[in-house]
C-alpha cells in the first residue's frame, strides 16, 4: 500500500480523480512504449516523459513533454531524431511547447557538470530538476534511472554532512521553484498567448507547488540520516511520485487531517482541469477578469487549500525547525 492509498483509506471518499489519472498514466505509458517499439534508440539514450506523466496524473488534457536523454556528453546525431519521436507518439497539438526544454535531446553530462553559473541556463536547470522530481522513462528506462542517479550523486558531494540536509541540492531546488515563480511573470510580461494565462496561474498554485514540496520534504528529511544513507533514501523517495512523497510526510509527521484536506483539494483540482469545458472557459479568463470567474476562483480556492495544508506540514509539525534553519536564509 502506498502512502497515498493509506491517506485515501482514511478519507471520506478517497481520491477518485487521482486514482483515475494513475490508471490512465499506466495505460498510456504501456501504449506509448508500444508505439516507439519500432524506433531506433541509441543504447545510451532513453525516451523520457515529464510533467503529468512523471507525476502519474495523466488525463485526456495532458501534454506530451518528452526528451531523448543521453547518458553521456553532447554529440550530434542522437537516435531517435525528434521527428521520429513525434511521428511515433502522434501528439498533435499536445506536443512540447516552444521553450525548447522538451522535444529535443538532452545530455546528462550537462545536467551533472553545469550546476550554477551562466552555463546552467533555464533549460538545463529545468531538465535537471524535472528529471529528478517528475519523469518516467518509456524506452530504455534503465538509462533514465542511471542519469537520475548521476544527478543525485552530483549533489551528495563532500560538502554534505551527517544529520543535515544536503544544502547544495536544497538550494538548487529552491532556486528552481523561485525561477518557476519569476518566469510565470516573465511570460505574462512578454505577452503572447493570453489564453494560457489562467491555466498557467492555477498550475503554479497547485501542481508546481506539489512538484516543489515533493522535492523539499525528502531533502529536509535527510537530516535524520548519515551521509552514507542519503543516496539510497533519496533514490527511494524519488522513485515515487511527488504526491506519494507528500502523503508520506503528512502521515509520518502526524498531520493526517491537514493531509486529507490538501490531497483532497488536489484531487478535486485534477478533476476540475480534466474537464474540457473548464479548460475552454479558463482560456477566456485574464488577470483582469479572473476575480469574476467562478471556475478560476474555484481553482484558486483549491490551490489555497493545498498551500495551507503544505504550510501546516512545514510550519506546524516537528519538521518546522528544519524549515526555519535551512528553508529561508
Amino acid at each position: 500500500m502506498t502512502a497515498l492509498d493509506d491517506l485515501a483509506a482514511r478519507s471520506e471518499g478517497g481520491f477518485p480523480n487521482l486514482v483515475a489519472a494513475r490508471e490512465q498514466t499506466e495505460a498510456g505509458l504501456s501504449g506509448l512504449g508500444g508505439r516507439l517499439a519500432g524506433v531506433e534508440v541509441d543504447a545510451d539514450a532513453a525516451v523520457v516523459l515529464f510533467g503529468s506523466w512523471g507525476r502519474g496524473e495523466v488525463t485526456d488534457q495532458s501534454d506530451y513533454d518528452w526528451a531523448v536523454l543521453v547518458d553521456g556528453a553532447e554529440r550530434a546525431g542522437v537516435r531517435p531524431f525528434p521527428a521520429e519521436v513525434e511521428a511515433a507518439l502522434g501528439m498533435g497539438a499536445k506536443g512540447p511547447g516552444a521553450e525548447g526544454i522538451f522535444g529535443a535531446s538532452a545530455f546528462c553530462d550537462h545536467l551533472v557538470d553545469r550546476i550554477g553559473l551562466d552555463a546552467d541556463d533555464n533549460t538545463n536547470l529545468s531538465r535537471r530538476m524535472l528529471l529528478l522530481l517528475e519523469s518516467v522513462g518509456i524506452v530504455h528506462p534503465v538509462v533514465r534511472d542511471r542519469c537520475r542517479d548521476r544527478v543525485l550523486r552530483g549533489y551528495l558531494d563532500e560538502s554534505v554532512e551527517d544529520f543535515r540536509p544536503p544544502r547544495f541540492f536544497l538550494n538548487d531546488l529552491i532556486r528552481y521553484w523561485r525561477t518557476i515563480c519569476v518566469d510565470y511573470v516573465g511570460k505574462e510580461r512578454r505577452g503572447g498567448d493570453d489564453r494560457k494565462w489562467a491555466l498557467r496561474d492555477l498550475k503554479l498554485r497547485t501542481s508546481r507547488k506539489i512538484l516543489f514540496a515533493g522535492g523539499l520534504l525528502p531533502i529536509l528529511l535527510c537530516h535524520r540520516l548519515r551521509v552514507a544513507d542519503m543516496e539510497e533514501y533519496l533514490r527511494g523517495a524519488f522513485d515515487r511520485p511527488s504526491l506519494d512523497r507528500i502523503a508520506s510526510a503528512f502521515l509520518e509527521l502526524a498531520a493526517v487531517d491537514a493531509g486529507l484536506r490538501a490531497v483532497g483539494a488536489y484531487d478535486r483540482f485534477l478533476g476540475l482541469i480534466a474537464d474540457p469545458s473548464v479548460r475552454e472557459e479558463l482560456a477566456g479568463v485574464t488577470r483582469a477578469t479572473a476575480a469574476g470567474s467562478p471556475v478560476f476562483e474555484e481553482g484558486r480556492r483549491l490551490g489555497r487549500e493545498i498551500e495551507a495544508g503544505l504550510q501546516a506540514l512545514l510550519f506546524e509539525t516537528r519538521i518546522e525547525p528544519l524549515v526555519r534553519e535551512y528553508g529561508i536564509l
Partner: protein
Amino acid sequence: MNSVLLADPPMALRHHPVGASTGYMAEIRGDWDLLVEEACRVSSFAVELAALSEPELPSLVDYLAATPALPFRYLSVHAPTKHRALSEQEYVAVLAELPAFVDAIVVHPDQIEDPTLYRPLGARLVVENMDSRKASGRYRDELESLFEALPDAGFCFDIAHAWSIDPDMSVGEDLLDRFACRLRQVHLSSVDEGRGHVPLSAEHEELFAPLLDRCRDVPWLLEAPPRLN
C-alpha cells in the same frame, strides 16, 4: 494593528491564518468599510464578514460588488440567521450573487429546509455545527444527512458550540473525525451561560488545544474580540 504584531498574543492568536468575524463588532454593524478596517486590525489574512441579520445582506452584496480589492487571502461571508423575511429560494439567490472571490458562505443548518436549493452555491457553501440551544445540526448524525444532500459543501467547526453540548469535547472530536475532509474554517471563542460568544478564555484555550491542533491548516475566525494578555 495586525495580529502578528500584537505583543505577546495568546497562543491561539499565533495561529496562521487567524482572522476576525465581524459579527462581534455590533456597534459598527452595517458600516462595511469600518468593519473591514477593524477586522484588518486583527488580521489582514482572513476575515468573516457577518451579515447575521437578513437586512444587512443586500448592503454586503453591494459592498463586495463595488469594492475593488480586499487584502484578505481568505474571505468568508456568514449568511443571515436572524430577521429572516425572504423565502428560502430568494435567500439562496441573494447568497449566490456574492462575488466569485468569496471563498465560503457560512450557513446555519437550522436555516436549511430544502438542501437541494443550496446546490448552486457548490463548494462555497459551508455548514456550521450548532450549539446546545438548537434542536438540530449539533451532532455528527444530525449533519450527516445534510452533507449527503450537499456533497460539495464544506464544514465550519464552531468549537465553542461543540463545547456547549459536551464539555469533554467528545462531540467535537466526533465531528472532526467524520467531517475532517470537509473542514474549511474554525469559529473560535468561548460561550457564556446564555450561549453568547465571548473572548476565548485561557481555560478553554487549553481545553480546545488538542482539537485545534487538528485544524492547523484552516483559518480560525474569532467570534469575539481577541483576549489580549
